């Protein structure tokens, strides 16, 4: 800038150090969290009715990856590869998907309290799933057929997508999406979905009610390679596409008009973020039920520790969410063994008080 007085050399140097320091912190955080996530996953695979030491788990996984058949023998191999591994992988994917969805929604709504659970996306998915459980049986009863395995995930997924599209259509006027309208419409849609889900619970029989209750509390229990192959193609694109959104979401923090002034394709960023959130939430609700608080707590913690820059926030949220859910699953499996607690209970009992504590401690983050 020719007109500017040259920056005082000392201050400019300090600034360069500041920028370099921030890049280093970011790199250390990503690598550190990725390693921690891998370690936690290995530990999680070892936990359960048949305890397997982490070293043996790592050995089995390495042998499987390298195709070394000599080590792949014994009951623990079956347990690791067919039961525990899909469950932990599902936990990683669902956790990452939920946390990133939360971070995306918060960026989109410019509100640190926005969460798929809050704006009715999860409720929409839950309503569709409840309808599948309760009404599916009735319609199928005449045909003497069992409800197909894929019906519930598919139903939940369609519900999540439907709720998101409804929100988007309500809040969009003349090509512009009003975030405030969308937030309010989300609350209304969430309440409506909740009421209809309650109605379904009212007309359901005892067995359906138990299914409904258990599912609405969330569980990674039904994990299998089949289920994983249905979730992975939906959550992985979210994780791969999120770097495209980071810059745009940073600009959106100044407001939509300012983001447009900065040259950000605001409408495209919003549409992509909404689509990705609907897909990821639909997929995770479908495969693991309703699991709350991951999408709020994880991004909030990351913002507290490394700041709100989405280029770091999104990948770190993915890793943090994956770790939180796998960790919560360990607790859910061990605390009342041999039975297991629904994981939604664990995340909410840890998450809600923790979140309240954060609110009381750092009001400045919310009060903007």
């Amino acid at each position, binding site marked *: *800038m020719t007109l500017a007085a040259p920056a005082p050399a000392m*201050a400019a140097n300090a600034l360069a150090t500041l920028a370099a320091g921030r890049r280093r912190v970011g790199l250390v955080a990503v690598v550190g969290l990725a390693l921690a996530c891998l370690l936690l996953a290995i530990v999680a695979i070892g936990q359960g009715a048949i305890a397997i030491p982490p070293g043996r788990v790592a050995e089995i996984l390495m042998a499987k990856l390298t195709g070394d058949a000599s080590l792949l023998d014994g009951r623990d191999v079956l347990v690791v590869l067919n039961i525990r591994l899909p469950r932990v992988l599902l936990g990683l994917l669902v956790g990452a998907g939920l946390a990133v969805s939360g971070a995306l929604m918060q960026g989109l709504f410019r509100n640190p309290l926005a969460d798929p659970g809050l704006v009715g996306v999860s409720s929409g998915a839950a309503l569709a799933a409840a309808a599948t459980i309760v009404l599916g049986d009735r319609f199928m009863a005449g045909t003497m057929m069992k409800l197909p395995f894929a019906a519930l995930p598919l139903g939940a997924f369609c519900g999540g997508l439907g709720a998101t599209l409804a929100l988007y259509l309500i809040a969009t006027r003349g090509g512009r999406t009003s975030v405030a309208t969308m937030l309010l419409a989300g609350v209304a849609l969430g309440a409506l979905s909740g009421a209809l889900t309650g109605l379904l619970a009212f007309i359901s029989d005892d067995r359906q009610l138990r299914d409904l209750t258990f599912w609405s509390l969330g569980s990674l229990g039904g994990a299998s390679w089949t289920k994983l192959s249905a979730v992975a193609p939906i959550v992985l694109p979210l994780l791969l596409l999120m770097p495209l959104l980071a810059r745009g979401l940073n600009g959106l923090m100044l407001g939509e008009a300012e983001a447009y002034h900065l040259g950000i*394709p605001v409408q495209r960023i919003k549409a992509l973020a909404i689509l990705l959130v609907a897909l990821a939430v639909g997929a995770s609700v479908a495969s693991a039920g309703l699991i709350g608080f991951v999408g709020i707590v994880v991004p909030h913690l990351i913002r507290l520790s490394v*700041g709100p*820059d989405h280029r770091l926030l999104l990948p770190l949220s993915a890793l943090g969410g994956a770790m939180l859910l796998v960790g919560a699953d360990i607790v859910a499996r061990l605390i009342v063994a041999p039975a297991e607690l629904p994981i939604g209970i664990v995340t909410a009992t840890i998450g809600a008080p923790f979140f309240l504590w954060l609110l009381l401690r750092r009001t400045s983050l919310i009060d903007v």
Partner: protein
Amino acid sequence: MSESGPILSGREIGFLAGGRRLVAEASLELTGGTTTILIGPNGAGKSTLLKLLTGEIKPAGGRIEIAGEPLETVPAWRLACQRSVMAQHARLAFPFSVYEVAQLGVDGIGRALTRQRREAVVAEALAAAGVLDLAGRRYQTLSGGEQQRVQFARVLCQLEAGRSVAERQVLFLDEPIASLDLCHQLALLDMARSIAARGVAVLIVLHDLNLAVTYADHLVVMDRGRIIAQGPPAQTLDDALLHQVFRVDLSLSRAPAPGLPFLLPQQHRGRPTA
């Protein structure tokens, strides 16, 4: 594309909202090297006109061209290289640092620049806006005036990053000095004029009439959605116009040295003039 003509021109532009005509038949040209200052009472349509000229909202009628192209056909990122905008009341949703806020100006359109160059642009802009020593602070912990200077630094970043793409640029400042102390008001307006001296077309919305006549090459007066006068400040303002637009009695004098108009409010509550 003629190099000498106006960089941005609006012809007969209008805008309606809720059945009310917020801007009507407004025509103006922003020329490189010229500081244009837009004045008018509250609700005159100044900010709406600014939004129309920046492309943020589409006019209901009329034509706007930037560097010879119709404004609505220019894609957002290229427009961002051609014009920078400092809007009123920029609020931030998350606790970004001052450095990160300024950086937003080069993040979007400065991808062609090297990282060292981008960092230098941010450092220079922060220094120019006088907020270099605040670089590590959280934006939300700053005072209103400091925040405004950080936003100015961000706009300077964007202008500088866009310069490598677009030769002919426009700078829009909507009440940029509203929360600044006198020293920083003058510093910011001096800076705006030196940016204009570099060939940029500068449009500023101001409320202080004395500063407006001091800093404007071209003064535009708006009232009830219409541009009712424009031209060099000394020839544009007179007692009748001021009374009609601002509905106050002003005594218009000539400042001693440059012969610019100088305005004093008259017969208002408080201290009656003799």
